[in-house]
């Protein structure tokens, strides 16, 4: 028994020193699985999407025809409906991001600067809890609340207002609610890392609250807001379920993709439409990089 153990030890020792002397081999061991995933499942799927955007569907048989053309892109850009849907989607994504940033900042500020350690933990859990609930349930909950006789209408009635009903406003509200945690958490983390002495130094040098916020706190936490905005912006850009539930007749790009995959059975056109959010996100990331906000991430 003892010799057996000794031999095994010696073998594992040999294996360890074999690996220790070959850093490239160790790196390969570490990265092979994630690289496989990134390469095959992720990049290959994205490439397939782009390729199929240049194919067409035989309108008679419904089969995908694999000859290269840009017909899909031509019809996408020439049709005014798609243009207005694109702008609506973009507007909703920007709107949701702004609303979330506006709500998340004071919330995160309170958590990071004023709340006790215990209260911070409770609040973080409270913010994460909605993420455990089903997406569909949350969207339908908003549908109920936004209904003509729903909670929102009832709350607004004393002020002489009505529920916004189902449409772009309802989509904005619902998506802002759904993605809010993704904004609060990075901003909270960013504010937590902001040294108290910087705020004190600003106050000490004569700055009042608003000036300190504008010149010190916000610029320092801006990268975190950007990190949050990448979530809220891209998640809003691709959403179609909440839009279907509370959006009424106003569609977004996701719905166009969905109906082309399903009812219209035009996969190549769906792929073409799907490239729009990808391009927008790339432009967005490029713009963000220009501001230098990604340097500190």
């Amino acid at each position: 028994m003892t010799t057996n153990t000794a031999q095994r030890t010696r073998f594992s020792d040999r294996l360890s020193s074999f690996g220790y002397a070959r850093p490239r081999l160790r790196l390969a061991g570490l990265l092979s699985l994630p690289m496989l995933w990134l390469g095959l499942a992720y990049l290959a799927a994205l490439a397939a999407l782009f390729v199929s955007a240049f194919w067409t569907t035989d309108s008679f048989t419904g089969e995908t025809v694999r000859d290269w053309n840009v017909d899909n892109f031509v019809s996408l850009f020439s049709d005014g409906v798609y243009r207005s849907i694109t702008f609506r989607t973009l507007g909703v994504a920007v709107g949701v991001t702004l609303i979330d940033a506006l709500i998340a900042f004071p919330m995160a500020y309170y958590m990071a600067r004023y709340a006790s350690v215990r209260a911070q933990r409770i609040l973080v859990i409270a913010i994460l809890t909605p993420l455990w609930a089903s997406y569909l349930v949350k969207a339908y909950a908003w549908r109920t609340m936004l209904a003509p006789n729903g909670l929102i209408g009832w709350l607004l009635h004393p002020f002489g207002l009505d529920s916004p009903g189902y449409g772009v406003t309802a989509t904005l509200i619902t998506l802002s609610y759904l993605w809010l945690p993704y904004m609060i958490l990075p901003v909270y983390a960013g504010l937590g890392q902001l040294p108290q002495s910087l705020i004190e130094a600003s106050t000490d040098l004569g700055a009042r609250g608003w000036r300190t916020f504008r010149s010190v706190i916000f610029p320092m936490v801006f990268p975190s807001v950007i990190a949050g905005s990448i979530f809220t912006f891209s998640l809003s850009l691709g959403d179609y379920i909440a839009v279907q539930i509370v959006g009424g007749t106003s569609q977004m790009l996701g719905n166009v993709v969905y109906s082309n995959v399903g009812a219209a059975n035009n996969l190549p056109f769906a792929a073409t439409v799907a490239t729009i959010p990808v391009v927008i996100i790339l432009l967005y990331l490029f713009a963000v990089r220009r501001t230098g906000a990604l340097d500190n991430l």
Partner: protein
Amino acid sequence: MSVAAETQTIAAQREERPPAIRLHGLRKSFGTARAVAGVDMDIADGEFFAMLGPSGSGKTTILRMIAGFEQPSGGTITLDGKDVTGLAPFQRDVHTVFQDYALFPHMTVLENIAYGLRVRRVPKDERLGRAREALDTVRLGDYADRKPNQLSGGQRQRIALARALVNRPKVLLLDEPLGALDLKLRTAMQLELKQLQREVGITFVFVTHDQEEALTMSDRIAVINEGNIEQIGGPAEIYEAPRTAFVAGFVGTSNLLEPAAAEQIVGERATFSVRPEKIRLHTELATPAAPDEFTAPGVLREVVFTGPSTRYVVELDAGGTLSVLRQNDGATNAEPRRANQKVRLSWACEHNFRIASSTTNESTTGGK
């Protein structure tokens, strides 16, 4: 005596103008913990004032209350004759140099320095001109467009100074300003700070736990322990004539004569302090003591060579031990000494100081 004379001159200077800072009955508690327990002191205009104490003594809390970051639980703070106790930091003519420097990392060095002026809506040309001037004062003129993270610790320290001084505050507060620097840089910055203070003529109040730093730089020192002032005085007064056992122990090497031994040697049952370098060591045991001297026989227990000086630890026949420090100047006491040799100590009466024997002070001496 020179110590008394020094104290008198400073006192006389203080009569002329209202004090830059006056603290009256200043208290601060955090929950049930008492950080500052009723502090009264005046800091004269143009003075380089140090608050010296161990960590947790409440010295930084006092500084933060003067700056306005903490609200006192009781008492008042007067700046230049004006009560500022309830005012926000931005309403006080006081600036702080923070321990971590607190430079704004997203701004250039010049923008950092100009920040206080920008906040005060000083026109851009004047603002940048004055910022450049301040940058030249700390001799970092070439670094205007760098970001703080491209600077060394000593450079950041100087930028923090320039940023605080460019607004010409009434008082500059420095929280352990040299704490993060290495020894060599610290020594250089001590002299530089002192020189800068003389140039600008602004009252400097700085907090430190380093007794040497406090002695080197300050006009006056307040030794602080457990939220109380143990003693205020010039560096020489604090060092030569410590009034409490805590001061004797915290500033310099503690060298105490316990009551039992003091009764035989001094003729009074109390605790006394003698600085080690004031004591002379004799091998001829029979020589009678001069009339203005105290003398005590003992046994040499340890000889520690430390380069420029040698430290001797002597166990007194009357009880307790005293340290003796001799310069290795090659002239006096050149003969080598062996451990366990019988020796005799002597020191002038004027270097023998009675220590206030309150129980709290007794207990804190051990903490040093």
